[in-house]
């Protein structure tokens, strides 16, 4: 069952790729089509269809895994992040149905791919559920939350399109730098995925003996070549190199090493792109967006947030509180994950008020959408992996 479900996941990956290509054709092929006369460009529709097919494939992954593991597959980083990819896909399907905007597809599909690929970097084996997670509320709370976040992510994508469209890339302004930073972050994720897959395929593993925080001898595994070594580490595996730097015991050296590889990998990718494009990445994409109506993408981003936020509030706050009351004896306990869900909610509330009552439209609003999504990702990755709390199961 589990194997079957992973196959559907691979299949959907190709469908996402196909959808991306089709949307790209629909966006760039317009002129070509006009010369042919009145024949309509069907690429957008086909792209939409393949994104729906990808969604169905992912849902099959989801259902088969659900059957296989015996609980809703949203219990650890691998499962949750995958579910986020599916949810963004769902959000796209909904919003596309309203606005039929092919640019949205062109931007959303690669991001979904990136997120699903990122998810697969986490261990995907079936995990036994600890008692606190054995509840129907796991299903209800997490799935509602992830759908909310998925739709909110469309707000981010749309805001991103808006920014790439309107920002003047000829001058090195703060805005250009900000946007390039977003691109760079995406490239770091890409670099992490590529490197992870490559070293994984090569079965790379370096093992160190080191002295941990408690002052005891311990072993630590590296899946990336160790640039940063553990405290008083000694290489004991055949593979591996001697690290260049050693960090104190309270730092998770293997994790930091992975982050360093991603950051450097992203940098390499970014510089390569900059050199070959000879302009900011955003600036290189901009011409593609010539016929984007900024008013429309602005409205899409707002619509996505107006649709997504109530769902997020329901899943991430209200259902969360109901479950917390049952499992943890109190509906609210200021656990870091709870606090960051509240912060995310409050942030979007500020967005709505600024937009609706202070007239923050267009560019300002688009920046807020980007920050909002950054908060969601922060809550998913950083709060889960770094700020340990009651929620750190992964």
């Amino acid at each position, binding site marked *: 069952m589990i194997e079957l479900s992973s196959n559907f996941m691979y299949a959907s990956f190709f469908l996402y790729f196909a959808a991306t290509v089709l949307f790209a054709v629909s966006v760039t092929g317009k002129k070509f089509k006009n010369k042919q006369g009145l024949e309509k460009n069907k690429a957008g529709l086909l792209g939409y269809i393949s994104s729906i097919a990808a969604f169905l494939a992912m849902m099959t992954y989801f259902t088969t895994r659900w059957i296989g*593991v015996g609980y809703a597959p949203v219990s650890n980083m691998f499962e949750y992040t995958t579910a986020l990819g599916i949810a963004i896909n769902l959000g796209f399907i909904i919003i596309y149905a309203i606005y039929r905007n092919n640019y949205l597809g062109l931007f959303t599909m690669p991001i979904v791919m990136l997120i699903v690929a990122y998810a697969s970097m986490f261990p995907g*084996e079936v995990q036994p559920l600890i008692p606190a997670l054995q509840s129907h509320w796991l299903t209800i709370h997490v799935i509602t939350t992830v759908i909310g976040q998925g739709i909110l992510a469309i707000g981010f994508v749309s805001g991103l399109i808006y920014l790439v469209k309107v920002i003047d890339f000829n001058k090195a302004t703060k805005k250009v730098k900000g946007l390039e930073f977003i691109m760079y972050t995406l490239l770091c994720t890409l670099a992490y995925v590529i490197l992870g897959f490559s070293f994984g395929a090569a079965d790379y593993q370096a093992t160190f003996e080191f002295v941990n925080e408690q002052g005891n001898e311990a072993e630590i595994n590296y899946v990336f070549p160790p640039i940063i070594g553990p405290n008083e580490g000694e290489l004991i595996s055949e593979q591996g190199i001697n690290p260049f730097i050693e960090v104190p015991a309270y730092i998770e050296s293997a994790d930091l090493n992975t982050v360093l590889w991603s950051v450097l990998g992203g940098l390499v990718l970014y510089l390569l792109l900059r050199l070959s494009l000879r302009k900011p990445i955003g600036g290189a994409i901009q011409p593609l967006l010539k016929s984007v109506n900024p008013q429309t993408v602005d409205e899409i981003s707002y619509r996505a947030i107006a*649709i997504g936020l109530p769902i997020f509030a329901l899943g991430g706050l209200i259902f969360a509180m109901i479950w917390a009351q*049952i*499992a943890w004896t109190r509906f609210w306990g*200021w656990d870091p994950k709870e*606090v960051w869900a509240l912060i995310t909610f409050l942030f979007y509330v500020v967005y709505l008020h600024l937009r609706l*009552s202070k007239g923050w439209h267009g560019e300002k609003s688009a920046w807020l959408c980007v920050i909002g999504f950054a908060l969601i990702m922060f809550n998913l990755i950083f*709060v889960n992996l770094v700020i340990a709390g009651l929620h750190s199961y992964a």
Partner: protein
Amino acid sequence: MEKVKCECGHLNPYGTYLCESCGKPLKEEKGKVANMRYEGVARRSQTYKKSPVDLVWNFFSSVKVGIWIIVLLLVTSSLGTLFPQEMYIPPGENATIYYEQEYGLLGKLYYQLGFHNLYSSWWYMLLIASLGISLVIASLDRFVPLYRALKTQRVSRHEGFLKRQRLFGESNKIDNIDEEIQKAEKLLKEKRYNIRRENGNLLAEKGRFARWGPYVNHVGLIIFLIGGMLRFFPEMYLDEHMWVREGEHEVVSGTNGEYFLRNNDFLIELYDEEDEKYQDALSRADGPVVKTYQTSATLLKRTSDGTVGSETELEEIKDYDIRVNDPLTFEGFSLYQVDFKLNELSEFTFTLESETVDADFSDIEFTVNLNDPQKTFEFDNGYRVEIMEYFPNFIIDDNREPTTINRIPDNPRIIFEVFPPGANEDEGEISLIGIQVNEALNGENDHTIRMTGAEMVDVTGLTIRKDRTLPIISLGGIIFMIGFIQGSYWHHRRIWIQNREGTLLLAGHANKNWQALKNDFQLVSDNTHIPLPLDQTDKDNKGVSQDDDRTK
């Protein structure tokens, strides 16, 4: 303040932008498009600045202030997650040194600034209180005039009003305007618009109730906050902890000695490491993974309604398996499985031995119940063993005297006195016995007390919770969600079509989702001679913002 009289005859409050009745702009505004927020009504808070009460009122009425409060809340909330809050540091750790020791200088600062209890600090609570006040005042100040404006709006609007809508169109090439309006009316009715006619003019309106969404939502939030506030009132909230040994019963605190809980059995079930399904994950885990924590409990109730104390009699009410995610609930109380202690010592069994004395000790065996030890043990062969002192949790105190830390037998020590047959009161052999301890205290002993067995029990740790604010909090949550959905998933749209002396004027306003409104116009224009209106903000982004007023 004087009222402003519009040319249509309507009296508008001071500060009105667009006449409440006909919509004629009463104040000059920049841009092509009118600011339709709150229908251009006067927000009273912005028009009176007199007494201190008004100043305070106006402060909290401001959306800007509201936004600032939320921003402050979200920024300060994030600070509290930098390091764990005091309630999440390991039990038994002293906060005064823990933060500095774990997190260095930053941790020390964190503690000194009180961030280890950030969410119950006076200033954080003050922020939340301000948010609540702002919600009440800002909502009141906007809801009332908006409601009035939407109720008193006329069908025939002033030309200036129509021209300054984002969607506006006109045409004087239509032959029979009234007939076209008639057709449009039919189309819009099918689209479930509410239609009002007046002197041949038309107002089609849909989804007005979405405009109340934000206020319903705010009412829900206010109720929620009131619920949160009530927690601090006496009798509303209870948070207690209880430990119950297997086979024993304890009183449930907070029930006035009314209810008791017996722990019949405590159980921890682990995942089977042989299970193929979980093998990979279990081999990666640091230790065994727990599947179930369960207390098989019996709830008991006092039958004698008499006095608290030793004459209490109990009857069984119900049996229940308390697990994580499945608390035992009765009369507003809930008992949650939160903690446990395995293998707490409960009984020691001893025998007597001697290398020097020739006697039969085979019948000598005695058991000390560590939770209620017997004082003396007498045996058929004339031997007598007496417990001189018992320390459930032995320690040598500051005065270098043996004593106990508490009444839990975690490190029990017993001082025995052994009297062989015929020995006098002062001739006993004294020894101190505990786990791996057996010391003679008054010189060489002829007899040795040997421990032959120990019994242990598991202890369950339960949280006792009563929260009378839950119904109010839930009600607030439900209303909040209803309002949120009402305001987000429906939208208010209006279409005005007017015949002004042979010229057809056409305008539309939506509080969001302009796309849907444009589609409706498309439908009308496809089926009639009425033209499509132009979006006046297209190619000109300098128009004043146009969205709805889902605001505080």
